């Protein structure tokens, strides 16, 4: 038997205690760690599904309906002086022209008649009273002054010699003259025939077709407005 010194006995005793402690504590702590791991795994597994997280929260893009994008211009109808043209018919035909799918509505605009005021005034005027609107207006033709779109009663009833000579119908003339004068209000000036083909609606077709063919409706190139 090996005999130990007292100090060696104490050291051996401490080592013995530490070893015993290690033997007891280490397995328990390892067990505890394993338990924690498995609990964490159970919790993680049960929390692994989040189907609501995948749902999109972006609202669908709502396409603007036609009525939303359309600009509505309002206008009132009246007559000035003694006219041969019937005001009710003038009102009805002018509204048809203004809202015709071949006309200025292609700009994305609508025209709505109101009882008074409005964005512009559409006037059927006695020919002799045309000059009362502006020095630029004459008894022969229709014209536009500011927010007044004035249709010469003589032209409304008879079209123009040039138009008639070219074989244009009165209804087409009426379409053309309303579109032309409203075109001025929309911001257009006069244009001229260039190389034949269809006349632009802003050409002075009442006076001379200049080699173009009559056309009551605005061309694609005319689809713009300073009012928009």
């Amino acid at each position, binding site marked *: 038997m090996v005999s130990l010194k007292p100090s060696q006995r104490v050291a051996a005793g401490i080592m013995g205690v530490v070893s015993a402690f290690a033997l007891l504590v280490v397995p328990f702590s390892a067990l505890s760690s394993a338990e924690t791991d498995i609990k964490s795994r*159970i919790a993680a*597994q049960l929390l692994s599904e989040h189907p*609501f997280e995948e749902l*999109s929260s972006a609202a*669908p893009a709502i396409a603007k309906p036609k009525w939303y994008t359309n600009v509505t211009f309002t206008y009132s109808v009246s007559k000035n002086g003694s006219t041969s043209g019937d005001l009710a018919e003038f009102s009805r035909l002018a509204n048809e022209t203004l809202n015709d799918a071949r006309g200025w509505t292609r700009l994305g605009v609508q025209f709505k008649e109101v009882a008074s005021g409005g964005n512009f005034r559409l006037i059927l005027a006695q020919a002799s009273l045309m000059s009362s609107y502006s020095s630029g207006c004459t008894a022969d033709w229709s014209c536009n002054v500011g927010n007044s779109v004035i249709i010469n009663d003589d032209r409304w009833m008879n079209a123009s010699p040039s138009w008639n000579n070219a074989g244009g119908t009165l209804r087409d003339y009426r379409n053309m003259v309303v579109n032309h004068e409203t075109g001025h209000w929309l911001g257009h000036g006069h244009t001229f025939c260039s190389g034949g083909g269809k006349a632009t609606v802003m050409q002075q077709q009442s006076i001379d077709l200049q080699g173009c063919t009559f056309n009551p409706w605005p061309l694609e190139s005319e689809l713009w407005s300073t009012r928009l």
Partner: protein
Amino acid sequence: MKIKQELTKRTRLKHPKRVIIITLAALLLIALGVYTFLSYQNWTTLQQRSQDATSSLKKAVDSSLGAESPAEDPAAQIDTIIAHFNKTYGTNPCDISNAYSWQTILPAIKEIKTNCATRSATAIALIDTLKPLSQFLKDQKSASALIAANIEATKNPSDYAAAATLWQDTTKLSETASFKPVADKIKEVTASISAAYAALAAASKAEDKAAFDTAISALQTAYATIPNINTVATETQTALITKAVEAYEKL
């Protein structure tokens, strides 16, 4: 001589009685021994059965939910555990014949019975937390599928009134107790989306631009609340899981 004769007579008379008594006593002792042995076996079996049931349930939980590589469908895993429990605890592991049940008057036996009952109660408590959790996970899946279908169906809505009706329908939504907080939040969100679509329909009919713009904003706001469903679902799910893990710890 007379005395001798008397003694012989007495001995003759008493001898068969003693044999009977001794035999009966021996039989009783054997019966008692057998009963004691059976009692011991029954109580030991009960104790073992109860311990086995608990440890097999724990193993079932560990292998299905505590696996290193978890399965994709936790609800199915829970259902496997519940099925295992039903099989193991189909007959109460603490049940014992009336012939032995009286023995619980003895403290040691009472302890076995009490420990068994405690272990059973712990297992039942775990299953009681797993059942609503499984139901919750299933409800969550079907509800999210419903909402996803509505989102898809109204991706490019043209009929706003139809979209409003679609979002208003929550009849297919689960109303189970564990899922109710989430169902309530879903109803709140879908109602606001439905209301926004109804407002869009009304604005379109009236061709009211301002109302149309307001309805579009309302729709965007309503959609932005969809993640709130996930918040409530996660909270509810976490609470259910915490209960389940606590019950598991007690196994």
